[in-house]
Every structure is written in structure tokens, then in C-alpha cells.
């Protein structure tokens, strides 16, 4: 068994635990490489099926190719695909930089708030109709209380302290000082009513592992990660006003792996192109305590 086999087996185990233990679970799909690997692992865990709905929070500032890629895969893999948004903030122009709020507030509104209210079913959700290929209002009132998320421990300090199964209270608060123990492969799967739970099957993966696995499994990945002729590529995907491509001529998965291993990115943090991480010294941690993924 090599290291990718081990990581894969562990993630599958976690996904199956989540599916077994929680009724109203969904999986967040940001369209990025990590959550796409997560989606692939779900197909592995459930033998080609994805019995868990996928949720995408559309900030409407996403790079357009991302949405196209999302819908193509959703149709091809027969996914239960749902998206939500913060209509109010978008209409009121409470956005950054073209609107009237700062960067962290924009993140807070378009992502965290939108996510909270999409999961609870309070705000309108849209679901992909596989017959027409179009989104229609989601009539189900399901409150998703379990969310499977593709965060990795190596991304950033606060994420390195996560549990595989991590409870959040009603306000989605994360009590870092008092997290449940995880002994061997036993996770916290018993919850008082009203608790929300985040499940992190990719915690032990590194950025390099993700790319190695994409190569091995031949997972379709959006081409934004590759240099398409202008000497630039995205290393991490987000909203276009706050995510900057990096200088790189990696044109395919193999070249990305080489670049990560020995090339220029071997010692540069992956999220260095994500502006919200830097705004107050602990930007991502502040966001995450409030429910950001």
C-alpha cells in the first residue's frame, strides 16, 4: 500500500461513517481541486454512486469557467446538485471591491452567510434538473446539519487543528479549545439535537497528494489550474477579485506535481494568492470561527 492508497482508504472510511451516521448531510463542492477529489472519493466509497447532495455557494464572482465545469460534471455524474447565494447582499452591492464593504465582510456575506442560510433552507436554493439541464427552485425543506468539507490540515494554521468530525453549535461557532477526542478510528458521531457537524475527510492530504491522486485517478479538473499560454495559472480557486493567478508554466497535472516537488512552489504557501487570509493577521481563522470553511 502506498501513501495515496492509505489516504484514500482513510477518506473513504470517514465518508462512509458520515453517510451511515447522519441523515441530513451534504457535501460542499467549491469546484476547486480539493472538493473535486472529495467528490471522486465519494464515488469510490459508494461504488460509483454519490448518494449525498452537493452544495455550491455561488458568490457570482466565481470565474465563469468554474460554473460551466460544475454543471458539466454534475450532469455526467448524475449528481444531486444544489446551489445557494446571498441575493440580498448582491442586490445591495454589499460586495468587494466594486461594492461598499471591505474584503472580509464580503467573504462573510457572500460565503459564510449564504452557506448558513442555504444549509438551513432559509434562503432559496436551486437544484439541477437532469432532464432539462437547468436549475429550478429546490422545493425540499431539508435542513442540512452535517456538511462534508474538503479542508486540508496543511493549508493553514487553524485548519491543522481540525478534527475529522467537528461539531459546531447553533451559531456555527467552533470551540477550538474544547474539541472532541478522536481515538484510533472512532470519531464523535453522537450529537445533541441542534448540533451541526462538519466532516473533513481530506484532513491528512497535502497539496501535493491531491495532485498526485488527480494524476493517478485521472480526475477531470478545471483547466484554470493550468497555464493556458499566458504563463499564468491558478493555484487555488476563489472569487476573481480576490484570487490571483501565479506565474507558472505548468500545463498539465504532471508539470504541477514537478513544480510542487522541486520547483518554485516547493516553499511557498498554497493560499498565498488568497487575499482574505492576510487582512488582519489571522483573517482565515476569524472567518472560520464564524463558520467559513
Amino acid at each position, binding site marked *: *500500500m*502506498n*501513501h*495515496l*492508497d*492509505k489516504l*484514500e*482508504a*482513510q477518506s*473513504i*472510511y470517514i465518508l*462512509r*461513517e458520515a*453517510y*451511515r451516521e447522519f441523515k441530513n448531510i451534504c457535501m460542499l463542492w467549491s469546484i476547486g481541486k480539493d472538493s473535486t477529489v472529495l467528490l471522486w472519493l465519494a*464515488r*469510490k*466509497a*459508494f*461504488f*460509483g*454512486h454519490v*448518494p449525498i447532495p452537493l452544495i455550491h455557494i455561488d458568490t457570482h464572482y466565481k470565474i465563469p469557467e468554474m460554473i460551466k465545469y460544475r454543471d458539466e460534471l454534475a450532469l455526467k455524474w*448524475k449528481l444531486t446538485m444544489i446551489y445557494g447565494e446571498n441575493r440580498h447582499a448582491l442586490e445591495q452591492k454589499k460586495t468587494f471591491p466594486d461594492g461598499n464593504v471591505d474584503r472580509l465582510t464580503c467573504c462573510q456575506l457572500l460565503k459564510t452567510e449564504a452557506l448558513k442560510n442555504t444549509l438551513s433552507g432559509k434562503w432559496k436554493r436551486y437544484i439541477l434538473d437532469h432532464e432539462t439541464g437547468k436549475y429550478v427552485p429546490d422545493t425540499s425543506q431539508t435542513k442540512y446539519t452535517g456538511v462534508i468539507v474538503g479542508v486540508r*490540515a*496543511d493549508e*493553514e*494554521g*487553524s485548519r*491543522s*487543528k481540525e*478534527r475529522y468530525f467537528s461539531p459546531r453549535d447553533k451559531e456555527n461557532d467552533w470551540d*477550538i*479549545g474544547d*474539541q*472532541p*477526542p*478522536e*481515538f*484510533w*478510528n*472512532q470519531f*464523535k*458521531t*453522537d*450529537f*445533541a439535537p441542534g448540533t451541526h457537524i462538519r466532516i473533513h475527510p481530506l*484532513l*491528512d492530504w*497535502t497539496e501535493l497528494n491531491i495532485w*498526485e491522486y488527480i*494524476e*493517478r*485517478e485521472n480526475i477531470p479538473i478545471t483547466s484554470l489550474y493550468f497555464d493556458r499560454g499566458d504563463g499564468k495559472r491558478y493555484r487555488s480557486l476563489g472569487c476573481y477579485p480576490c484570487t490571483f493567478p501565479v506565474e507558472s508554466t505548468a500545463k498539465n497535472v504532471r508539470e504541477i506535481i514537478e513544480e510542487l516537488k522541486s520547483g518554485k512552489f516547493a*516553499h*511557498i*504557501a498554497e493560499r498565498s494568492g488568497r487575499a482574505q487570509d492576510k487582512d488582519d*493577521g*489571522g483573517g482565515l*481563522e476569524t472567518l472560520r470561527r464564524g463558520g467559513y470553511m
Partner: protein
Amino acid sequence: MDSREQMNIVIVGHVDHGKSTVIGRLLADTGSLPEGKLESVKEYCKKNARPFEYAFLLDALKDEQAQGITIDTARCFFKTEKRDYIIIDAPGHIEFLKNMVTGASRAEAALLVIDAKEGIQENSKRHGYIVSMLGIRQVVVLVNKMDLIHFDKEVYQSIVTEFHEFLQKIHIEPLDFIPISAFNGDNIVNKSPNTPWYEGPTVLEQLDGFVNTKENRELPFRMPVQDIYKFTEEGDNRRIVAGTVLSGAIRIGDEVVFLPSNKRSVINSIEGFNVAPRNTAYADEAIGVTLTTQIYIRPGELMVKASEKQPSVSSRFRANIFWVGKASFVKNKNYKLKIGTMRIGVKLIEIHRIIDAAELNMDTFKDQVERHDVAECILETTKPIAFDVVSEISLTGRFVIVDNYEISGGGIILEQLPDADSSLHKHVREREFLWEKSFISPEQREAAYGHKAKFIVITSGSEGKEKEIQEIGRQLEEKLFQMKYKVYYLGVSSILYGLASESTVSYENREEHIRQIGELARILTDSGQIFITTVFNLDDYEAEKLKLLNQPNDIIVVNVGETPFNKFVPDANIGPDGAVEAVCDLLKRQEIILEYYI
């Protein structure tokens, strides 16, 4: 495809003995830090007027920087020429013991850090003990802050001697002791000129010297059943038993046994997605299998090979546990045990001794296991479970205990104990002793009602027969009622409590509901009635349990269609057609109802 070896290492030790500093130093000195990280932390310290410490690199969270202690387990990724490491920095403060155990339970090797000046402290010992309990065999002791004792060989030697003695008591034989100063970098990556008398490896050399635990392929095959899938989408009709193989290997055609239900079948296929077809699966793989026969098994059972050494099946065992719950572990309270994929009710029956891990004193007088205690005790589950004692297969001999939604303890099974006098037997004996006898005898009731009292349980092991047996139960009730018998059918249990469903209900709930039905049956049969209920897929243990709980009154178990039992012999096996008449015939034969009343 590049395939580098990976290893999890945990760093443990008393608070402030410098664990985070060791890791920070390792990361910095081997160039494993992301560019700019060192500078940004130094900058942060300058801004906040604090001296820079290597520990800050890890204690990335604001909370921790303020308190100066590691609250949680931080993972950091680290590479040497030899392999990739995940280093788990476990908190040394006693309050965070559960986090320390969380970190340590994932590790293949442990670095135990001791402050040369403070010497061996409470948690140096406690952590040593827990590392031993978790089954980590590769332990290296780092004697840190050697600069504070001026790299004195004598002082160092005395610490080594004292700690070595302690570790031996708990069956840990450290691979090495290394004198270091993490703050100054002595013996971390490079040999230090300050310790010319030390000839062993540096910390980095030692890390690369650890061996990855051997794979568990040589052991008997064990796979806890995690779930049973039947995704019918697009004509998929596979019924897949899914789980992660803990040990051994399984091959198509192997005969397998599911425990504790004791059901048997043969492996038909090994399933997977985007993998080449294969005949064999090995330890550590997350797999799925299909079987040659349709048998009913539930998540939580242990799948083993019929031809290999069988695990223990028992509801009583002796175990070592460590307790991290806020509330103490007490007797006569219902807890939940999680072992493999099984979840089941458990009680603390007896405490043999409390081991004060810090001092290793035995305290036998405590009547409960308190937070941070380590204890040897006897536990009893509500139903027999399958396990191996840790000395044989550690992977199937470890468990956790859940108290009020929280994982509050963990443990290892040392010995199987006989089931004979379970607390259920004891309960029934006590109940019967205290039962208030009525002035009306059972015979008087029989005479008045014209029939004997009876508890009738209808079950079935055939797929999709849940509704059918409920219907039979209702019709039987109606027929007997029309014949003027005192009869009652309890249907709510099947619907309300989900006794009917085979895979979604946890063992724990099912056990509790079986118990409730049994107690109820005792009362209703005592009142002289014929009490009918249905329990889909009743197994051997559950049938015996109902029988026991209904004592001293009588029970009839009727099976419709395929039998769910292995050893238990039901009073009747009948087909679905004419089931009601068949049960009536049985009642007549047993003279429960009399012919001439009909």
C-alpha cells in the same frame, strides 16, 4: 508514480518541556517551512513585544500564542530524504489530555520530551503510560533544555536512569535517549559540540531510524461491517457489504462468518470503483464485497474467515481504560461502547484497580473512574460482541466509551469473561424476587378467560417481509379477539421505534427496545393476556433475551419464511400463506387455546 513512505510521529511530554520548540526547530533547520513563515512569525513577535520562540511557528492560533501552551493537536508536515512525516504536536497540559490521546492514537512512533532542569514530571509519566496503552512501541526520549544544566553528563545520566526504570514498569523499552537543546538546536539536526560525551543519533537521524509498523496482512482476516449498500440507480442491483479490512486478506470464494450474529456466506466478488478487478483484498483497504447468498446482517458486525482463528464473542470482558470525560465513569449507568463499527450499550460492572498513571500507584478503593484516571475494570455490553484481546489482534481489541454524546474514554480488552451470570440474569432474579404477587392466581385467570397467557413473537429473516409479519400479527389478534380471547397486538414498536428496519437502526436502540418489549411482555402475560408482537430479523441473542425477560411466563417464537436464527429453534417455522391458521393450530396443540372454544 512516486511513492514516498509516510509516517505519523507524536511528540508528548509535560507542559513547558518544549515539544513545540523541538518541532519548530526541526521545521526551520531542515528548510521545511513555507517561505516567509519564519519571518512573519518573527515580525509578529516584534510587533507584540515578545521574544521570538520556535514554538510560535506551530502555535499558529491566536489563543495559543496568548496562553503559551498548545491547546490542541497540531499536525505539521515535514520531509527528510527518507520519507514524509506528519508530526503531531500533542498538548502537555493535563486539561488537554484528550487532545494528547487523539494525537497519539494516530502515531506509529513517539518522541517523549523531558525538561532536563525540571526532570520527570507528572505528565511525563502519564503520557508514557498512555503511549504504552495505545500500543505505540517505538519511543524515544528527548532530554531537552540541556543548556540550562550546562550540558552536564551526570545530571543527564540520572534522568535517563530514573525514567528508564519507570518506562520498564509500563513495558516501554525506549529506543534511545537524546540530550538536546531545542532552543539552540543542539543534537536536533546536527551533532552538538556541547555534548562530546554523547555518541547516539540526532533527533533527525532517529526519526529516519523508526520503522513503519509492519502491515497487518499476516494476522487473521477481520473486517468490521460499516454499512450495507444497495444503490438501485441505473439498474445497479449489487448488495454490497462495505468496510475497511483491519487485518489479514480475503479472497473470492472464501467462506465468511459474521459475528455476533453467526451468519455465514461466501465471498462472491470484491467491488470497487475505478480499480482493476481483483480476487483478493488486504489489510487497510476500504472495500466492498458481495456474497453468494442473501443473508441479513447489520452494520457493526465483524466479518471473519470461517477457516481462521475466530475472535471472542462475549458480553463481558476485562479491560484497561483511560477516562477523559467531564463526568466520572460510574457503575449502573448506561453508556455506549464503540468497537470497530459496532455501537452497543455498556455498563461498568467492577473496578479492579485505579492506576494513578503519574505515580503508578494502585488505588483499589475508588468506586468510580475519574477524569484522567487509568483503570482496570470489567465491562458488560447489552449483547455479546465480537472482539480479539489486544495481545492477539490489537486492532479489534480497542474501543471507546460514549457518555452523553461525548467520547469520554478509550480502552483495550485484556481478557474475555464468561457470559454466564450477566447483569440481565441478575436483573430478572431481583425483579422476580420483588414482584408483588396478586391474590389472583394464573390458574384462576385461565379459567376466567378460557385460555392460557402467552407471549407470541412473530419474526422473519426474509427480505422485505417486515410489513407482512405485521399484517400477520394484526390478523392473528383479530381472529383471537373474535373468538373472545383476551389478546393484544403491539404494533407501535415496529413503526415508532423502527424495529422493523434492518440497517438504519443502531444496535443500541434496538437493544433497548427489545428490553422494553420483554419487560412489557412480562406484565401483559402476567395479566393473563395473549400478547402478540413482531420483531423483524430477530437473532439468537434477542430471542433468548425476550425469553429471559418474559420469565416465568411462556413465550412462543414463530418464524415466517427464511429463518433469521442460527442456533435458536423457533416454536414454528411457517410459510406466509395460512400463517394465522398455523399459529392458531400451534396454540391448540400447546393447549393454550382450547378447541371447543372455537
